[in-house]
């Protein structure tokens, strides 16, 4: 019964949050600058959660997540700007396009582990970038212009909610357990009947799908995309968000994406020091909270040192 009550509470929270922000936008308290930042935060949440599925849950170290986003963004841009397709269709097709790319990068590189996989995915990201730069049909290095703006608060909110809920449900199923088993010990996973190749490719496919959706939302919000926006640094940014929130922790990724976006936003006025402070924050987190800021049991900033109970009765007076 308590579980059901919690579920209802969650639904109410999700709806109320949507209505609240929608209301603030429509009466003008949240102006277009803040709306832009909210959209960016939401896109970052989708990216972080989807990368967390690949890197955090399944343990496949990927540095090519921005490439999946760029595939989604360009697909959506072509479909909406050149073929005038409805946005919902473009959103799904970009997701599937990125997913296909995820499987394509996934299958040949799945023999690789750790650093080697990271290098291979990094190479994949660069290939996508170079192809985008050299294809005139999609604007080449100048970028893709005049993409219709469809993305608004409703679209990003629905996408974020769907991403988080579906990924969380996936993780809590036997498929998700198999992914976690692959991360823990591949040989043992195979010995209990888990097809490790399948689950690695599956994680890439699902993670890439949501990255593609994020790219689609991005393209149809900013009117304009260029290959440079989806470079190596973007992948690193997403990875930092995941590590910041906690490897393998979905809720942590959400909080990580929100707080990192807010940190970088609030430092915008002191542009010279921005990257310095940002780096110091990350540095401190890695030293003191190397498992991520947010544990499964909610929000704990400082390390919780377990108090050891000694049986001192005999020794002391």
């Amino acid at each position, binding site marked *: 019964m308590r579980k059901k009550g919690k579920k209802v509470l969650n639904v109410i929270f999700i709806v109320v949050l949507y209505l609240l922000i929608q209301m603030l936008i429509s009466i003008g308290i949240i102006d277009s600058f803040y709306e832009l930042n909210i959209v960016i935060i939401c896109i970052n949440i989708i990216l972080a959660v989807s990368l967390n599925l690949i890197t955090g849950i399944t343990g496949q170290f990927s540095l090519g997540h921005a490439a999946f986003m760029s595939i989604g963004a360009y697909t959506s841009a072509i479909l909406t700007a050149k073929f005038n397709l409805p946005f919902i269709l473009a959103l799904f097709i970009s997701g599937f396009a990125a997913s296909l790319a995820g499987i394509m990068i996934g299958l040949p590189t799945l023999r690789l582990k750790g650093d080697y996989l990271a290098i291979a995915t990094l190479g994949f990201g660069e290939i996508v970038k170079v192809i985008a730069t050299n294809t005139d049909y999609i604007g080449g290095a100048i970028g893709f212009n005049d993409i219709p703006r469809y993305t608004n608060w409703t679209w990003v909110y629905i996408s974020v909610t769907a991403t988080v809920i*579906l990924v969380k*449900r*996936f993780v*809590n*199923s*036997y*498929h*998700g*357990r*198999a992914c*976690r*088993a692959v991360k*823990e*010990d591949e*040989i*043992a*996973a*195979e*010995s*209990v*009947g*888990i*097809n*490790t190749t399948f689950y690695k490719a*599956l994680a890439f496919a*699902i993670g890439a799908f949501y990255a593609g959706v994020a790219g689609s939302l991005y393209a149809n919000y900013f009117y304009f995309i260029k290959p440079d926006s989806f470079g190596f640094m973007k992948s690193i940014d997403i990875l930092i968000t995941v590590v910041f929130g906690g490897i393998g922790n979905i809720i942590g990724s959400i909080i990580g994406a929100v707080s990192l976006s807010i940190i970088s936003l609030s430092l915008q006025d002191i542009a010279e020091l921005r990257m310095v402070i940002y780096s110091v924050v990350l540095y401190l987190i890695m030293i003191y909270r190397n498992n991520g800021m947010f544990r499964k049991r909610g929000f704990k900033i400082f390390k919780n040192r377990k108090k050891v109970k000694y049986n001192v009765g005999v020794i002391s007076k």
Partner: protein
Amino acid sequence: MWVLSANNLSKDFGGIKAINNINVNIEEGKIVGLIGPNGAGKTTFFNLLTGIYSPTTGEIVYNLNSTVSTKDLKPHKTVRYGIARTFQNIRLFGNMTVLENILIGFHSRFKYGICTAMFRLPSYFKEESNAYRDAIELLDKFKLLYKKDELAKNLPYGEQRKLEIARALASNPKLLLLDEPAAGMNPVETKELRELINWIRDIFNLTVILIEHDMSLVMNICDEILVFDYGNLVAKGTPEEIRNDERVIKAYLGEDVEKC
């Protein structure tokens, strides 16, 4: 009736013959011990049985859930044939709870798809709650229930071994392969393990093959012993026969100098 039969099984690593032309049948319901000096090919034999290596020549025929003859066996498919194993160095999923380790052991019996998982269709709840109930039951049998929410890596050594065996049994195998189950155990724990293996064989009705260096354990529980040396099957027989077999003594202790 035999459950497993190796026919002319060989495995080369470059020039080294790790397993050299082995023919052996394993009878149903027996506890079979695999002994031999270091590097004799025992673990290679295990890895061939579970598909981690594929044989250079020869084949293995399983007569378990169905009769399959195989040259190339994928490791994750062995479970479907009714084979489960444990490892020499314990391979638990350390950062997952004891209960989750067992649930992963049930992996091959789940049927629902990814969409069912994401949209929580009825079969998700049905299969998950069945698996949960069975996992609790299995843990209860192994007396690990009181630790079900603890991380596997935090268990003491003996219980980790137990959990690994329990996880292997979760897939409902007909043939259980134990790779040095008593390694690193003290005499008391070894004695408990001996009782555990006997009990498993009776309760779960299966065939057990185990690699072991602890002779007291092997001699006490095995119905049959296979002795390996330099990739060859040197001897096969009951513990009593093996104890008095000259070739076995030679493999372990070497030959008298005068005889040479």
